[in-house]
């Protein structure tokens, strides 16, 4: 068989599928995770987080995030804190594995120490924000049962509405996600507690097209997002600035050496 023939077979198979059929819920969630957590082979962003109480009191975090995708869903993260002052120059290194506990290290600049830290409970707050570790780095696809409830417009965006129910007890009993049909980015997520009351609300407040890489590829990116604790009124607003993909970050950026001597080229303010 020559290659043309094989390609023709594939095209025929693709065409045979009804065009109107929606992908199933698990496929949507998987594509959504790819679009949200995995775009590009690597990424850099300067992240500002405002932690805001219901009374309006604000605390801020500013960090640079570097990410590199590996094989089979593995990822490496390097997080370097610029603000506030008491954590300035603190850095985290995370080697994330889909099926087992992450390897995590922290660099404590005051004593120049690299410490391995226990793979956090995924529900623990990420640096004191309304986002959990899981919200920041993604939840295993198979940890929930997903079903496609309906398709509807959210603002201007055509969305799939997905319901996800955890297989094991989690900090929510039900999650509704509005996944943008065009970009597969989550536009909104509602987390319900054991009393089936809305507990947390995620919104993608701004999406920007980041054009990058050799093919001038477009990466739709959520550059402003909010997670709100509906019950307490506390919320965390996150802004991504200087987002860039396909930078060619080397493995050496995600090592113990980089914790001790941060790669100035990538983390400059």
């Amino acid at each position, binding site marked *: 068989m020559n290659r043309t023939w094989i390609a023709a077979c594939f095209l025929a198979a693709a065409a045979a599928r009804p065009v109107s059929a929606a992908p199933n819920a698990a496929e949507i969630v998987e594509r959504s995770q790819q679009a949200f957590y995995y775009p590009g082979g690597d990424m850099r962003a300067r992240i500002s987080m405002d932690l805001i109480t219901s009374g309006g009191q604000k605390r801020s975090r500013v960090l640079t995030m570097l990410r590199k995708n590996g094989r089979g869903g593995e990822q490496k993260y390097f997080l370097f804190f610029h603000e506030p002052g008491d954590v300035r120059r603190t850095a985290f290194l995370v080697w994330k594995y889909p099926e087992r506990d992450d390897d995590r290290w922290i660099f404590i600049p*005051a004593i120049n120490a690299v410490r391995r830290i226990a793979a956090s409970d995924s529900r623990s*707050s990420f640096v004191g924000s309304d986002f959990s570790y899981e919200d920041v780095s993604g939840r295993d696809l198979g940890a929930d049962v997903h079903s496609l409830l309906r398709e509807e417009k959210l603002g201007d965006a055509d969305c799939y509405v997905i319901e996800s129910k955890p297989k094991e007890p989690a900090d929510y009993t039900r999650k509704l996600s509005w996944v943008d049909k065009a970009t597969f980015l989550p536009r909104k997520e509602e987390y319900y507690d054991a009393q089936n009351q809305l507990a947390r609300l995620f919104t993608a407040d701004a999406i920007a097209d980041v054009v990058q890489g050799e093919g001038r590829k477009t990466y739709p990116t959520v550059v402003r997002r909010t997670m709100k604790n509906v019950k307490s009124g506390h919320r965390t607003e996150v802004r991504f600035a200087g987002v860039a993909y396909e930078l060619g970050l080397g493995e050496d950026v995600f090592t113990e050496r980089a914790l001790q001597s941060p790669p100035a080229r990538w983390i400059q303010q």
Partner: protein
Amino acid sequence: MKWQVAVLLALATSLPGGAARAEEASSTALSLHGFLLAETAARTTGQRPPGGDGGDFVLAEERLRLELTGGAGGAQLLVKGEAAHDAIGKEVAVDLREAYVAHAIGPADLRLGRLIVTWGVGDLFFINDVFPKDWESFFSGRPLEYLKVGVDGVQVRFSTPVVDAELLAIPFFTPDTLPSASRFSSFFPYAGVPGQREELPPARFSNTELAARLYRHVAGFDVSLYASRGYWRMPSIRLDDPVAPSTATRFYPELSTYGASLQRNLLAGTLSVEAGYYDSRSDRRGTDPTIPNSQWRFLAGYQRELRPDFTAGLQVYGELMSSYGAYRSSLPPGAPLQDELRGVISLRLTRLLDYQAWRLSLFVAYSPTDEDYFVQPEVAYKVTDALSVRAGANVLGGRHDWTFFGQFARNDDVFLAGRLDF
């Protein structure tokens, strides 16, 4: 020691910048940050040390920290300087905590100056971290970073795909800082000797302390091997005349160490194991009672987040003396007899609350062999991003007044501190 740092910095800045990796040739702007720290600690036992200067106060000071960082032509500069006003001693002291020039050449990172180096995997137990500690700061409730003291020297690190190697050469010796007699009661049997002197190893080329560490991440384990050649940092005491001494000399015997550490994930927690052999080179047979015997040190620890934002860490630590028989038979009559094994277990609990604005922690250490203990509860609250307050206590005691924790039994204190970052 400031001139030593000045020499090192001058040497460092004269390094050729052209060899730097091209991508790091860009210069980074100088940035200046720091904090103001006001701290006070008071003894709760009412048992003031004889001739002490602070009454019931162990600590009352304001501290200004300035941190300057920047880089140019592949070289990076970091200077952390401090001025502290001691309200008890009514003096202002200036301290250079850390100051170095760093330079990256391919796989090598070079640092020259005053360096703070922390090795090993223990929580407050140090085996292969052979660098100086400031126990006075620690027991008086200063922030934990003040337990570590910089060394003056040069550090080279080679990173290769197979292994990372770190080498330190320290020409200028720095001893541990022990709680001072004017602020703390501790075990010092020769306090009555009229002449007190200290004998530091002279800064000669042949006296340069060396320390090396090899590191590799392999199959989920962080593996490190360590070796060092230098001196004990806790002083030994030599008397000019054992019967009627007129001079007690604190000196620092020769020491080499060899060790290893392992760390890995285990059951959603972190397992830490560390061991080391302390080769007391000046008294290998263990017959000189003024010099510590060689010993093995080992540590096993496990840390795990039990619930979101609630972490527990458990450690078992031990020191096993070599040549215990020689130690026993050479001990002067009346001197306290240590056990062959000193074992300590510790527990640390940490709870974060209210979006991590509150941090509650408790450290408890108990030695079943020395029969002494150390308890440190602490509460820290971040009022704003810039302003934080911290309060806690140090509670120590034990059966004997000469063991590590037991000797400080009269120094239980409470501390309160406020910090403003800028």
